[in-house]
């Protein structure tokens, strides 16, 4: 069969329309990406069969598996380190990302495990190009805390790269600390400090 101009036009139109449709269907909103992530994490934290110190390793592994799906640690590490990110090689970057992720796991997942009665409300979301902010409030025993998730679009999903609590940005906080350290010390010194910090959490009951 010979392709006429009309055929080509129809086929072309079909491809254009379907590509638009697939984008519209496949990419969930930032809130839709975040909701199942937080729910899954809360389910693991409140799961009685995973509670207690004896299940810590298993519980942490599960939480981090979920977190790895929803957080973009590379984007986070990039921003946390800032300019020096360009001055280090890929191996150093991977090492830094791993250490920083471990620190967040030690600090914040450990803290999160202490809460059990949290109610998360999704209030608002705003998208600007490939970035988005999802605004939530967490209620825990009568205390209401506004938490904003800063997300970046990655293919067909949105991933978190910063958390902002009452104007205090997680990334910004570490960024300033690292900047202050790197003013006096070199990158290897910073890596050593990260390793030492992570070591302080070992064997600690949380």
């Amino acid at each position: 069969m010979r392709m006429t101009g009309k055929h080509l036009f129809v086929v072309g139109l079909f491809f254009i329309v379907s590509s638009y449709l697939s984008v519209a269907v496949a990419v969930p909103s930032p809130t839709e990406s975040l909701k199942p992530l937080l729910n899954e994490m809360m389910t693991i934290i409140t799961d009685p069969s995973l509670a207690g110190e004896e299940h810590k390793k298993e519980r942490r592994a599960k939480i981090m598996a979920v977190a790895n799906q929803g957080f973009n640690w590379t984007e986070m590490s990039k921003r946390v380190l800032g300019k020096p990110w360009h001055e280090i090689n890929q191996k150093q970057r991977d090492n830094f990302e791993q250490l920083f992720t471990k620190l967040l796991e030690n600090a914040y997942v450990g803290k999160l495990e202490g809460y059990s009665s949290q109610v998360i409300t999704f209030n608002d979301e705003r998208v600007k190009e490939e970035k988005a902010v999802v605004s939530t409030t967490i209620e825990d025993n009568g205390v209401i805390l506004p938490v904003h998730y800063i997300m970046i679009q990655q293919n067909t999903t949105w991933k978190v790269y910063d958390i902002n609590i009452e104007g205090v940005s997680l990334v910004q906080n570490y960024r300033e600390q690292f900047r202050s350290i790197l003013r006096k010390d070199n990158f290897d010194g910073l890596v050593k400090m990260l390793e030492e910090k992570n070591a302080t959490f070992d064997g600690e009951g949380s």
Partner: protein
Amino acid sequence: MKHHLWYLLFLVLLTCVGCAQQKDIGIVQDLPVEAVEEPGDAMDMMLADDFYDEDDNALCEAHTFNDPLEPINRFFFEFNDKLYYWFLKPVNKAYTAVLPIELRFSFGNFVVNLSAPIRFLNNLLQGKVYDAGIVLSRFLINSTLGVYGFGDPALVDFGLEPKPEDFGQTLAVWGVGEGVYLCLPVIGPSNVRDSFGFAADAYTHPMVYFVDDIWVSAGYYAGSRINLLSLNPDLYEDLKAYALDPYVSMRQVYLDSRRNRVDDLKLKQRCDNDFK
């Protein structure tokens, strides 16, 4: 009495500065937000903030700090750290053991309620007449139904949320910059503007008009601080546990949260609040 006079004089002076500044704010608010492409609220600001940039100079000044006194500040940070571990923590331990959580919670409410005049005045000074009304309503409801402010029925039963404003925030709204960052002994993180605001607020606290004794005021302040600590016992130790440089972390938390509070009125980038 002398102090009051100075305070008044300074207020008048600042009002002049404020009037000059107020005009700009009026203009900014009249314009539609889209047209000037200024962030409309905290969420827009977070979207606009991309602090990862190829060119370090292009970074928004929003997150910068002015800390030329860092060596002295670090000294007092260490001092406060010792104060915490050697004094506050053991005192808090005993305090928490003696008083049940309900009582400490109620005392916390009482302290907040008693400082309502500060919030009322500062809401008015910032032109937030509606919020000032809410502060007044909260004070009246909590002082009566809430039994001298020990309960918070205004929030629980009437849904009136607190509107925290202090003189440091008022000064910021009037256009006064932060000044250098300070880590004050005992009091903790602050800056020149907020230290001044803190001192001014002490004069609008009803305490000083009922009891004319600095030691009673100081004791009340210390008591309220211990009580606050007993309600959030992990805050400081968590910060220390998570941070590689707790001094920098605390400075950042203080400056960010203060800027966040000031930003509730101004539709401006935080860069504009800088002293430089």
